[in-house]
């Protein structure tokens, strides 16, 4: 791999990072807070590519890059050609539900129904036994997945840093569940707390349920993940 090829490779990787950072594509792979780092890395790589071309022109001799560097072509192609989708029901049902540390539940946000994240609902339902949810209607958004017996769950993946450490937060759907549901389709579900619970067969974690009043199909949100508050 001579220096011109190295420069092209650096430019491509940097360009793809910039593209992902600017368009919001990066949200499928890392958490939203990392956007400045994604953009900065892209800028540094593009500058490095330009510098490489400039110095190579001045003094053509230079050492070659190791063959392993060719592997960097793969993520570029993956992003340009296919742009792998965010994690969905397949990963979610093969991984145990996220277990969170109990914490003091703040009062529910105002509004009827009160908008909650899936992880917030699960926290309140499991550790607070629904006390802070009593008598209220809440609305949560996530994608649909089914377990082996065909029972529907509303799921949101929880990120700490990037998709490699994503864990599903599963909420079982009870009550007036729409008769026809597609896995991986996004739903906005309005309902209230129910004491029904299940045990995740994968890791034994507790899965809370929501008594569904209304369910509305929605487009996938810009940021498909949630992170711990």
């Amino acid at each position: 791999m001579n220096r011109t090829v190295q420069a092209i490779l650096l430019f491509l990787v940097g360009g793809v990072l910039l593209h992902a950072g600017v368009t919001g594509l990066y949200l499928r792979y890392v958490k939203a807070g990392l956007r400045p780092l994604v953009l900065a890395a892209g800028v540094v790589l593009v500058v490095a590519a330009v510098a490489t071309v400039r110095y190579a022109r001045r003094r053509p001799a230079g050492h070659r890059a190791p063959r392993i560097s060719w592997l960097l072509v793969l993520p570029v192609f993956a992003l340009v050609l296919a742009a792998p989708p965010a994690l969905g029901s397949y990963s979610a049902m093969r991984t145990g539900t996220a277990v969170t540390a109990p914490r003091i539940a703040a009062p529910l946000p105002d509004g009827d129904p009160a908008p909650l994240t899936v992880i917030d609902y699960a926290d309140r339902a499991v550790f607070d036994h629904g006390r802070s949810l009593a008598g209220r209607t809440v609305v949560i958004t996530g994608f649909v997945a089914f377990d082996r017996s065909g029972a529907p769950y509303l799921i949101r993946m929880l990120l700490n840093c990037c998709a490699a450490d994503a864990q599903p937060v599963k909420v079982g759907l009870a009550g007036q569940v729409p008769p026809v549901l597609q896995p991986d389709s996004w739903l906005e579900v309005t309902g209230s707390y129910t004491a029904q619970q299940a045990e995740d067969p994968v890791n034994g974690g507790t899965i809370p349920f929501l008594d569904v009043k209304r369910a509305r199909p929605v487009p996938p949100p810009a940021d498909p993940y949630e992170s711990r508050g």
Partner: protein
Amino acid sequence: MWQRLGRPDWLRPRSHHAHEDGGGRGEAFWGSVRHDVLHAGGFLVGGAMAAATLKAVVPSSWLYAAAGNPAVAVLVLSVLAVLLSICSEADAFVASSLTQFSPTARLAFLVVGPMIDLKLFGMQAATFGRGFAARFAPVTFVVAAGTAVLTGAVLL
């Protein structure tokens, strides 16, 4: 340990191309940026592919079959830490969801991961030579897992 058993020919330090005759500071800087990105980046992609394959192919229910036996559990989670190569900022959250494993096994997962994983091994092999990395990585693994078990036995 290195002083007792080490042999210099295992080490193959990267030849420090002390930036070939002349060339300004800028050239040296961008030259090493380019070299490091291309070199480490390649190994990073390799490690990421291995970890992603493992995550997509092996269902985690297999993992939990190992949770019953304490010794096997420690071993399995240590190996998993090497294979998954999760950054140390995030592994605690993953460890917390491995609820069926003993605290000692989860401690081993947390200790082994940052010490040795696939991408670290790749980079060590590239920097110090394969002969060194192939000896250094198992030693690191045993020391890290052993320390975790000892600590777990005393404290947990």
